[in-house]
């Protein structure tokens, strides 16, 4: 029996808590090429990690593996100390995921989406209904509750995706380009929500190629380049220089070769 760890219990754990998420040398090939290779990192409850990288760096593949949508070819992913690949059902309680472009079922209304996500995560009917009602309010989706997801704007879809990811109060939130298509007001609201979640003990991983997004909400940064981890450390003032060094030096190296 795997006991789920709630955000609050993780916050009040022993002085040196084991990491909520532990990636150990994970790798994955996609479409015949190495998308991610030998990636190791860990994350504690309440931390906000920004996963930076240029397009094609392997961010989405990494997040898909962490979210349980893809199995790694090599390495292990441990969630709360338990092998996540062996126990994918852990995702039901511990993980919330917003994939890139926030895919949704066009035939479902906004409210039905939230209820469906609740049921898929094993929430009882009454709990799912009250969680859906709270999410509609929190993400300002109440006026759209009866609208079909197929007719929502990309910004509205993004908000709905985030509401679905947070519906069951996960201990780990995995967000792939969450600020895509959001207007500046919505971006500010997103940042506020992420800070609130982190303050409540939720660990957050967000991938982006927008540096400002990272500096606004993250306390730690990992830079991926061509599928491997090139930097992992706290947020510092020289992030931009470091990011361009990794991306541009590599490009120069290739040109020289």
């Amino acid at each position: 029996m795997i006991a789920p760890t709630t955000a609050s219990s993780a916050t009040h754990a022993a002085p040196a808590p084991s990491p909520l998420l532990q990636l150990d040398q994970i790798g994955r090939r996609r479409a015949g090429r190495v998308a991610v290779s030998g990636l190791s990192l860990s994350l504690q409850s309440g931390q906000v990690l920004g996963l930076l990288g240029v397009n094609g760096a392997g961010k989405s593949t990494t997040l898909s593996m962490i979210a349980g949508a893809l199995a790694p070819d090599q390495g292990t992913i441990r969630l709360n100390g338990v092998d996540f690949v062996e126990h994918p059902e852990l995702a039901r309680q511990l993980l919330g995921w917003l994939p890139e472009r926030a895919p949704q079922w066009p035939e479902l209304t906004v409210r039905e989406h939230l209820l469906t996500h609740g049921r898929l995560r094993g929430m009882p009917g009454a709990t799912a209904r009250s969680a859906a009602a709270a999410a509609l309010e929190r993400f300002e989706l109440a006026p759209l509750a009866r609208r079909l997801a197929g007719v929502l704007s990309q910004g509205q879809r993004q908000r709905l995706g985030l509401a679905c990811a947070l519906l069951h109060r996960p201990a780990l939130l995995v967000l792939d380009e969450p600020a895509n298509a959001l207007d500046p007001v919505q971006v500010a609201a997103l940042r506020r929500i992420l800070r609130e979640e982190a303050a409540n003990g939720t660990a957050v991983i967000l991938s982006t190629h927008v540096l400002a997004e990272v500096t606004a909400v993250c306390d730690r940064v990992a830079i991926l380049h061509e599928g491997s981890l090139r930097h992992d450390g706290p947020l510092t003032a020289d992030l931009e220089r470091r990011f361009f060094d990794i991306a541009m030096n590599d490009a120069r190296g290739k040109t020289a070769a």
Partner: protein
Amino acid sequence: MTALAITRLELRRLFVRPLGWILGALTLAELAWRFVLLLGSFLASQIKLAALPGGPGYTDIVAIPTLSSMLTGSMLPFGVAELALLIVPLLTMSAIAGERSNGTLPLLFAAGLPASRIVLGKYLALLIWLLLWLLLALAMQLSLAGTTHLDWGKLAAAVLGLALALAALTAVGLACSTFAPHPAIAATTSLLLGLALWIVNLGARLAGIDNGLFNWLAMSTHLENLLRGLVSTADVLWFVLLIAVSLSLATRRLAAEREHN
């Protein structure tokens, strides 16, 4: 239970999309027309039939032929069984292939659902839709149950046969949807496989081969017995076997997709 959450999701998708309603309306209209034509011919020949001792009645001339033209042939070629060959591929094509092209399949994987529950949930939803459709088609024959003599045993065997045929075709369609990258390819493959299963013995006979294997492989062989009112374990097992093989293949393919795609 999360398989039921998938069933609810799939049912909602089926009922919101116009395709299901259009298919339902068109096929039921065709069946109603077929029913009226068969009923007309039955009424016209009723006196002649009454003179025959143990001659065919309403069940043989109207009720069963409305379900399938396999035994009698008809002015309109499509009974429930023949229509099922056409509509099941269209209904099942989007079950998994649609999720894949929509980008929502990873959401189901990320919810920690094993492939078997995704397949089972989708299968149940499709089956519910098709059994409702069968029930509506049956309502026509049953509407005259109070005024005519209905052979309940024979009708029940025929309905069992059709329900099994629908369940088997749905499982094949779902497997095709799991393997195909796009819904249209899934529908085409499913239609071709359904037709092949239906007439494999006929094709073999035309090629000069008439042996037990081809007859056993053909769905029509097993359905024909049930439509005649003959329920045998061997026929029922044939359908159960086809369902089990198709759903297993679908589950394995879906599990492999998460592992290797």
